[in-house]
């Protein structure tokens, strides 16, 4: 699930506990409004463009429900899987663009060629599960020049990649940037997603996050008030990602460059996920979107990573002739 291995800071847990005392009540609008204000500041956009959601995946689903009629929903393949599932299940018409190894890059010329009719284009950037960046400034600008395209960028891993297009939203009505506090902020269980929405999206999404639990709202407020804890954890994960990548490469595993808190790897051992699971290490077998042999590895604590690398080394050596 690509969660942050480090728990929330103690003051965040305290804040969540205070929120629990209000569980007999429906949500008070005040903390939600306060959170919108803090998140708007964090993103550098006006507060009125900030929408809240119980998880970014829920917001992505809502966008597909609300904006796919009369539009072709376009995604990359592979992509964040709930988005793929929702598009397949609910979009009247869908098109995915296959990203091929080894680069998994998105062909801009091809993409612009399919934006000739009303489209809802949803791109996760960085991509999940490849970890690769698919969009840059030039690409986003070129897409937004297509007058019939709504562009949704899923930046769930923004804090790890450092690249965001949120600042473009105030000048581009057809752009929506979706983010989450699940990953970098250690709040996966709180389900705080949010979007920085252009004018074309705002009317349909502005009331969407009105019913977030008090405990989640207060935890998110506390986490945002002291973002240094998050930044330090992100730094640790990025450093661990580098070290795990090097260790895997030494074991002969193909490791793909990542801008996230996970690594996509490829081995010849097709049933590795099951064997690692028996050793107490859970990795994601992404065979619902990529050929057998690809695995997505979430970066954990140094101790967890050591356990994983050792287990993998054992499995691979057991297979050697």
């Amino acid at each position: 699930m690509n969660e942050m291995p480090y728990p929330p800071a103690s003051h965040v847990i305290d804040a969540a506990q205070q929120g629990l005392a209000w569980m007999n009540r429906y949500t008070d609008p005040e903390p939600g409004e306060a959170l919108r204000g803090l998140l708007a500041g964090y993103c550098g956009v006006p507060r009125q463009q900030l929408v809240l959601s119980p998880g970014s995946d829920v917001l992505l689903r809502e966008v597909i429900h609300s904006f796919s009629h009369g539009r072709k929903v376009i995604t990359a393949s592979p992509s964040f899987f709930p988005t793929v599932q929702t598009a397949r299940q609910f979009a009247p018409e869908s098109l995915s663009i296959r990203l091929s190894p080894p680069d998994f890059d998105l062909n801009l010329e091809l993409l612009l060629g399919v934006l000739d009719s009303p489209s809802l284009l949803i791109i996760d950037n960085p991509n999940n599960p490849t970890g690769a960046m698919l969009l840059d400034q030039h690409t986003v600008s070129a897409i937004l020049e297509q007058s019939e395209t709504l562009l949704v960028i899923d930046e769930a891993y923004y804090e790890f990649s450092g690249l965001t297009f949120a600042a473009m939203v105030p000048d581009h009505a057809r752009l929506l940037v979706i983010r989450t506090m699940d990953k970098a902020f250690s709040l996966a269980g709180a389900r705080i997603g949010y979007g920085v929405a252009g004018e074309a999206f705002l009317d349909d999404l502005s009331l969407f996050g009105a019913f977030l639990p008090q405990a989640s709202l207060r935890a998110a407020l506390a986490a945002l008030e002291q973002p240094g804890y998050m930044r330090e954890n992100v730094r640790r994960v990025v450093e661990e990602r580098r070290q795990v990548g090097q260790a895997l490469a030494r074991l002969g595993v193909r490791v793909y460059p990542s801008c996230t808190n996970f690594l996509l790897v490829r081995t010849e051992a097709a049933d590795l996920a099951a064997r690692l699971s028996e050793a107490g290490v859970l990795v994601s077998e992404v065979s619902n979107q990529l050929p057998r042999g690809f695995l997505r590895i979430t970066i954990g604590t140094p101790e967890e990573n050591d356990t994983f690398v050792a287990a993998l080394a054992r499995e691979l050596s057991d297979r050697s002739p």
Partner: protein
Amino acid sequence: MARSIGLIVNPVAGMGGSVGLKGTDGAMYHKALELGAEPVTPARTGDFLAHIQHIEDVSLLVAPGKMGAWHMDGSAIRFEIIGETGQATSAQDTKRLAGEMLDRGIDLLIFVGGDGTARDICDAVDQRLPVVGVPAGVKVFSSVFAVSPRAAAEMVDAFVEGTRVTEQEVLDIDEAAFREDRLASRLYGYLLVPEVRRFLQAGKAASNISKSATQSKQEIAAYVVEEMDPGTLYLLGPGTTLRSITDKMALTKTLLGVDAVHAGYTVGRDVNEGDMLSLFERYRRREIIVTPIGGNGFILGRGSKQFTPEVLRRVGSDKVRVVATCAKVSQLECLRVDTGDAALDDMFRGYIEVTVGYREKMLMEVRC
């Protein structure tokens, strides 16, 4: 009542891998032995047997010696030995034993081996009963195989619990070409395999829409038929996805051949190049519909040699439609063509639309 399940192990499967040979077909088995190759099937078979959960609900009918019985040591599953083999085993043993097990009324046949073994099983039982392929060979490209011995055990459990079966491809891999790092394969046939629904990412992904292969093909067929033009001649390539289209039209289909359809009627069955060129005299608008071969992604040139360069040029590269289930394309890095005509191959290079569901398409790269 316990389900009766047959077990046949190809004892030489996979031995070429550890000594750098790409298969043990024919004389290569003896070369593998000279190079000191060790059997790999005992570990694979043992792993498979150890992970069957419904051991009380199955009763095995196993081949003798190293083709089955020897692997039962330590297993708690009830078994009975059937048939005879000599010291040296062969493809003929596999076929004969499979036939004997079929005659004994088994419900499911498990085979441990590679693509060559799958072809032998295909010859022996065709689609008269479901099978589970435990991968142990050097060449395991056919989609009849489970991803691992443990996954094969899961398939057996699913079968015991009562899952549906689906047709999966058996490929004929050219071992000589494979040794030269060329993947030359053709569609050999189909076997029935228990279908294990892949439960896509649990938890957060609340909308769990795992579709069966049959459902996916029906959706593709519904969309293709809806879009058909009554004035166009459709040449439908081999495969079960294409057969789902004729099923939708209430027509029958040659599974491994090319059939021609026009205005809702079959106008040619199992047609060859000459037949197609003759049909072109009558039908000016033409379209070819094909599905990629699982595992290697060939849409033209392998498995459908009937679509010769002459036929393809007369139809036009823009009139070739590709259909495939999401499950199949997810296992492909790209699509491939190898028509034997490099200039023609170049016309397909780039991206092509693949119909993967009802009003659902994927753009995939075609490599030559």
